[in-house]
């Protein structure tokens, strides 16, 4: 439904987006991750036809956004960053305007408005002018505008920014629900959101895609993926280290003392074996060793890896550069 090919956007000498390609199909929710200024918003602005690309092309439902902008735009719902709206208007007249611009009139318009008011919980503020609303309501008003015509493609730039945890949860659930029938791209800084709502995630850094996969695949890229951590009660660190180091499956070991004489050891799988595949047996080996040595196990689990680690290890170079520059 959304096809992005070799998209480039330069502002003067800087390349904000530098050869980005990906596709999103119906039923997919694509999470767009990346540090600030990585090119997420710029990419979304090109997909929605707000910014013309310097090179490359975007097609939405088969319509080229540059050649056939109106047809493409009809099929897109867009929540821009910071959720702009006409502040002097009331919520209901703003939604009426959005519906009319989408060609909805009469009964269809009334139904569409009632529907999004319901979805975005705007019942209580319909008559209020938007400038008097709280940030959460402003945000949801703009979100309502983006889904009023039940678009096939939904582009949401930081849809949960500025919402409280309950509202965040609701929007996430909404995205997940709508994702079954639509193609959705949303950008976020919140990594749990990607795990909670996305079927796929792209990490973008300095205008380039640096990772593309399901949340599970991305997590597996983490260094801690496949490591086993075990928390023991009343065991001596030195002894634990020595015993575990003898196990053939164990590579590197990390140990850290916890309060109340507890000790957490993290064992990484040895050598270059596929970390995730070996994880199960590594945990078993650790458990056996603990039983043999009569250590009291409090907790034992194989780590899936953390998206945050992946995110930071992939995009960290940027921070270093910025620090040097500063």
């Amino acid at each position: 439904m959304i096809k992005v090919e070799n998209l480039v956007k330069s502002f003067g000498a800087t390349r904000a987006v530098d050869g980005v390609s990906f596709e999103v199909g119906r039923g997919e929710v694509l999470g767009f991750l990346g540090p600030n200024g990585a090119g997420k918003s710029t990419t979304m602005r090109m997909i929605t036809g707000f910014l013309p690309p310097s090179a490359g092309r975007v097609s939405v439902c088969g319509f080229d956004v540059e050649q056939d902008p109106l047809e493409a735009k009809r099929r897109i719902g867009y929540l821009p960053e910071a959720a702009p709206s006409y502040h002097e208007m009331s919520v209901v007249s703003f939604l009426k305007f959005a519906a009319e611009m989408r060609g909805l009139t009469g009964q269809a318009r009334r139904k569409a408005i009632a529907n999004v008011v319901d979805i975005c919980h705007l019942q209580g503020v319909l008559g209020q002018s938007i400038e008097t609303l709280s940030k959460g309501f402003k945000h949801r008003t703009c979100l309502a505008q983006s889904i009023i015509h039940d678009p096939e493609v939904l582009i949401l730039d930081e849809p949960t920014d500025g919402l409280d945890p309950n509202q965040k949860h609701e929007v996430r659930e909404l995205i997940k629900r709508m994702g079954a029938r639509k193609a959705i791209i949303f950008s976020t800084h919140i990594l749990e959101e990607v795990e909670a709502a996305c079927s796929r995630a792209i990490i973008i850094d300095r205008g380039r895609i640096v990772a593309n996969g399901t949340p599970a695949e991305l997590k597996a890229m983490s260094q801690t993926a496949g490591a086993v951590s075990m928390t023991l009660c009343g065991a001596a660190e030195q002894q634990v280290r020595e015993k575990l180091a003898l196990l053939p499956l164990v590579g590197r070991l990390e140990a850290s003392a916890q309060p109340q004489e507890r000790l957490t050891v993290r064992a990484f799988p040895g050598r270059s074996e596929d970390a995730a595949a070996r994880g199960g047996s590594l945990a078993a080996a650790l458990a056996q060793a603990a039983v043999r040595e009569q250590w009291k196990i409090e907790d034992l689990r194989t780590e899936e890896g953390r998206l945050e680690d992946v995110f930071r290890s992939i995009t960290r170079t940027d921070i270093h550069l910025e620090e040097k520059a500063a």
Partner: protein
Amino acid sequence: MGAWAVIRTIAKRELAAYFESPVAYVFLVVFLLLAGFFTFSLGGFFELGEASLNAFFNWMPWLYLFLVPAVGMRLWSEERRQGTMELLLTLPVAPWQAIFAKFLASWVFLAIAMALTFPIVVTVNWLGDPDNGVIVSGYVGSLLLAGAFLSIASMTSAMSRSQIIAFIVALMICLLFILVGFNPVTSLLSRWAAPSVVEVVAGFSVLTHFEGFQKGTVDSRDLVFFLSIIVFALFVTGVVIRNRRAG
């Protein structure tokens, strides 16, 4: 959805936005007060002893010089400042439709302001027996003049995020369009330039082209003059908006 339905929807929203803020009413009051002041005090409406609106229309270009840029300055700079431009231009609307619709809404607003000067027409008709055809043509000319100034304000508004800058630049351009045909300036010019040159220069003035309408002679050349300013300035508005997005 047709192009005109889109234009109507945007124009309707724009016009409603004027009346949802107190600025519109302030503007209307200021406009009517100034129009009255210019007509009766500076224009010497009663002293002229004519049953005409000459005193009224004579001052229109100078009144519009300040008031029309004030109406037009927010057209695009406000969209840019609030970020709604991104919203508007990602709706299924061609940029020219949005530009024309917003221009149209402000033009209608100015037409409403003009329509509210009707007591002056009533007064003249009550006191004497004026040529109402001339009055109508005067209003048509005023409307075109306002449209030309407004399109210039639309253009400067697209150039800047700041309404103040948009206002000042629009005012300067409009002033230039007045001055090249303003008598003191043309007589100064004729001291060292050939009369034909002076005439060409004055041909670019809104005053020269507004004169015909005031006299009741609607010349197609005057019509074309105002309409081409409007078309040109709106076209430039489109170019500016496109270039700003192209980065």
